């Protein structure tokens, strides 16, 4: 069974009198251990797809299975739990909490998972070490460079040991060298067996991933197996 399976998924928004289909009959399956990029011009529906896959939203129609759970019919609380336990997010603008230090930022998902303090700390430190920032544990995000902040964000995404990591333009706010190292980190994680889905409009980045899912006008036009 694929890790992610979308069947005839549609997402429609109502803007005034008009109904706009951001996604229109999407069929997609992603297997565990894949490294895929969703590409497409702006307005193609890739962000909407990403939000659905990331359980931030539910489809208007169709079926969406995430790791054997029917996310298309999940309640708000169930979606929160899916996001917490099965999904890790990496954002373009890092989205770290500025008042917390690195350790506290990485611990945050585990607080919502209800882990005990000792375990939280141990796992957070391991994740921070994994992204190579052990010497920055007590720094706040504002004292870090962009690349370091994105590494913290990746550590935060990893810390609850999710089945899949979604990265929305993870290198968009970084210079090319730093972006390169972040991509290398994703590649490394994928080699270790982590499922990773990138959303990007950068053809060069997409070219490195084994699978490219190309979108246009709310439909997948290429890359579906």
């Amino acid at each position, binding site marked *: 069974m694929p890790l992610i399976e979308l069947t005839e998924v549609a997402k429609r928004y109502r803007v005034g009198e008009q109904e706009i289909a951001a996604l229109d009959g999407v069929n997609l399956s992603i297997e565990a251990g894949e490294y895929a990029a969703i590409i497409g011009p702006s307005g193609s529906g890739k962000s909407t797809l990403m*939000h659905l896959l*990331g359980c*931030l*939203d539910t489809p208007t129609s169709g079926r969406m299975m995430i790791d054997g759970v029917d996310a298309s019919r999940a309640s*708000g*609380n169930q979606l*929160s*739990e899916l*996001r*917490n*336990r099965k999904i890790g*997010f990496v*954002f373009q603008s890092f*989205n*770290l*909490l500025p*008042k917390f230090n690195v350790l506290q930022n990485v611990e*945050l*998902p585990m*607080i*919502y*998972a*209800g882990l*005990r*303090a000792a375990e939280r700390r141990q796992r957070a430190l391991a994740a921070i070490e994994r992204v190579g920032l052990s010497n920055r544990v007590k720094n706040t995000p504002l004292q870090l460079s962009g690349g370091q902040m994105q590494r913290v964000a990746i550590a*935060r995404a990893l810390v*609850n040991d999710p089945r899949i990591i979604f990265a929305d333009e993870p290198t968009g706010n970084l210079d090319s060298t730093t972006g390169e190292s972040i991509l290398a980190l994703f590649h490394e994680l994928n080699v270790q067996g982590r499922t990773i889905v990138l959303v990007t409009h950068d053809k060069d980045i997409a070219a490195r991933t084994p699978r490219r899912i190309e979108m246009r006008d709310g439909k997948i036009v290429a890359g579906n197996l």
Partner: protein
Amino acid sequence: MKLWFSLLMGLKEIGAHKFRSMLTMLGIILGVASLLACFALSEGMARGLRESMTQFGGIERVDILSQDPPEEQIGFADISPGSTVADAEIIQRRASLVTCVSPESNLKNAALTRGAQTFRATVDGCWPDFVAIKKHEIAAGRGITQLDLDEARHVCLIGQSVAKNLWPGNKPETAVGQSMLINGRPFTVVGVYAFYERSSDKTRREQGLERPSAGRKDGLPGGRKSSNPYKGWDMFSIKNLAVQIPITTMFYDFKSANVINNVDTGPNYKLDKLTFQISDVSRFQEAIEQTRGLLENTHRGIEDFTYYTREDSIESMEHSIKSIRVILGLIAGICLVVGGIGIANIMLASITERIREIGVRRAIGAKARDIFFQVIVESSVIGVCGGLLGLAAAFGLLGVIAKLTESEYTPVVALSGVLISFGFAVVIGVISGFYPALKASRLDPIEALRYG
């Protein structure tokens, strides 16, 4: 565990905006301080009033006063002998619900003299029970006895202020056995009453803190030392100025002649007052009816007497205490509500500032209720901190009030007042966080992430 974390979050948030949080808290601080101050002031007042009431004889004391008979009895009202000692005697013999009874015949503005010292006060002629009914305490010597009464002896019982005024410089207790003149007739002091004062004054005195208005200490109303001549007219000063003699002596010495315009209208053995004490307050009305029946006999059916009970005045006193409390509490409550609105306002501003943070929290797995709870905890922390600071402020404020105004009644801080004001602050904190929390928890995670 999440609660603990939310608490830390709230404290962190407050710490990050110290000035803003202080301003927000100020509303709660002032509200709590004024609420507790109101409680303490009204409690102090209530205690003071109740204390005076008890000094006066409490609810169990009943006075019977003379009054004009009703219209329809005027024509034959003369068949009634009026209030006489016979009334007291029949109540003493027959009224089973009455424990103590004493008739009273007053000599107003009598001149009290010893040597060169003289001043004027009211002298009461009474029975031995008078001491018990009026809640007097004898500090030295003895009370008036039945023998004093039977033989109409020239003995008197005096209050401490009387002793101080007639024997200046001496301890009041030394007056026992000495002689003094009442309207020129010699009397032997057989007893001196204890010194009566408000319990708050007593503590002050025992702590060695003399009140600046020492004029009232001598007990003389309108004493030269006191700036406010009326300040001494409370139950305590009045009791300290008491002079009691046997009622028989009063009749023989001062009431056997009543000279009006050089014509002696004969003796006046009428009572000014008849006072008794009820044994069981729960059978109050029964006791009143019992005595009324007896007095209707002695007065031959003429209703020329009336009852004066403390019940009415206690009731109206309790009523005014209650309304003062309600009014003060209401004002302070409004203060607190305004403070709560301040919290709600700041919380709304604060979540607008943190929409993106809320989006991030939702994205990494926070449930709507986690966000709700976090905001509620933050506003509650403001409420709790404001409440605690408010209590501290209240104690300071009460200290200043007690020093500055030198009010009649020292404020009393009761535990219930502290708990109520603090609890109110916490409740306001929680309630004012409710709407902002609801708003924050209902944010769409996707839109929140895009915000800003």
